[in-house]
């Protein structure tokens, strides 16, 4: 009889969804059934052609990788203005997420309640996600605290519905920062994380299938 996880796999294939599989390898009999299901689904009329949006988006991404722009590249986080904007965004996220009152760095008078201090440049860990070819994929800010906060924006990976971010620590351990849902290739994530920001080495974006898309060394 079909196990629940094989049934789930077959349901996903029948519906044209990405199948999930957890906990160990399938039995040889199950492999045969699953393989046959894929063959049947792939024979469905009209479904085997690539989506035009995907073809265009992948072409654009490859162009960004293999046709690097002449002259100065736009590395927003490396500019003071870009950094300021992202830090401001991170601060806003920290405020909303913590649901607390926060001081305005430029106007500290009259503040009566500060449960969650605003992020300052010198305590933030920041980085720019870059693809292997040097194309900028987004930025990340990690705010150390209790809890710590991570904020990131991701751009121009439109062939994926989502991307996953993992934080790599200097001791070799890896912490999942979360999954960024993409709309038209763009998305943002803000999330509390329990990690010592001082021990962070870099952050990496992965496609849903686990392919590393780009990394951001954290300064």
């Amino acid at each position, binding site marked *: *009889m*079909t196990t629940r996880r094989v*049934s789930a796999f*077959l*349901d*996903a*294939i*029948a*519906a*044209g*969804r*990405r*199948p999930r*599989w957890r906990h*160990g*390898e*399938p039995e040889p*009999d199950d*492999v*045969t*059934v*699953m*393989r*046959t*299901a*894929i*063959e*049947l*689904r*792939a*024979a*469905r*009329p009209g*479904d*085997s*052609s*690539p*989506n035009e949006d*995907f*073809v265009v988006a*992948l*072409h654009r*991404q*490859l*162009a960004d*990788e*293999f046709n690097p722009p002449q002259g100065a590249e736009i590395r927003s986080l490396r500019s003071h203005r870009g950094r300021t904007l992202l830090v401001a965004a991170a601060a806003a996220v920290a405020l909303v997420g913590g649901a607390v009152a926060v001081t305005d760095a430029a106007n500290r008078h009259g503040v009566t309640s500060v449960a969650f201090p605003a992020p300052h440049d010198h305590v933030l860990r920041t980085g720019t996600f870059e693809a*292997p*070819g040097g194309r900028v994929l987004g930025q990340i800010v990690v705010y150390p605290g209790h809890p710590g906060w991570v904020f990131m924006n991701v751009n121009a990976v439109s*062939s*994926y*519905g989502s991307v996953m971010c993992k934080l790599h620590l200097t001791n070799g351990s890896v912490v999942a920062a979360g999954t960024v849902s993409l709309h038209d290739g763009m998305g943002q994530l803000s999330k509390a994380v329990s990690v010592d920001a001082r021990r962070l080495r870099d952050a990496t974006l992965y*496609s*849903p*299938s*686990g*392919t590393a898309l780009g990394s951001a060394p954290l300064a």
Partner: protein
Amino acid sequence: MAVQKITGTRVQGPTTATRESHLRVLDDDTYADWESVYQDNIDRLYRLIYSKVGNRADAEDLTSEVFRTALRPLRLDVSKGEVRSYLLATAQTVLASHWRRTLGVSLTSIDAETARDALIEPGRSDVPSDAPQRVQQILAAMPERYRRVLELRFLEGCTVKEAAQAMRVSVSNAKVLQHRALRMAAKIGEEVDA
């Protein structure tokens, strides 16, 4: 106009990949740039990978991975056939890696001989898979109820509940029918291949 030549016994891959091959005709054309490689192969490569994973999300991810992996070290001073051979070798590796990562076993694979005809040989632009014809053969050899449950589920995209309603059976009965039908289809498939 493309000049064609008869080449001997080996197809030299654009990088380090080599592949033994039968005597065959190679197109002497070369690709001008990576974009022409992409435009000429994206459709066929996607279809090939889709036929091995059965869903768009994985097919798109893996197709992207093939191009990202293959284009970076690609030399363009080799024939189109050699570039396609290299793309095919990359696709084989990427697909194998995908199944190893997600299932731990190789659920499907790209058969070089089968895929080569459509993906590599010059002038062939049809679908790099004989899946639809093969599936029709398999379905035609099945009992009516087994054939119907597979058609409803995998060709018409019905849920188990919808398939059960269409066949006027319970949901659990439809699941049993589907499982038995898939096993029979696998067996018939093996006989078709033999």
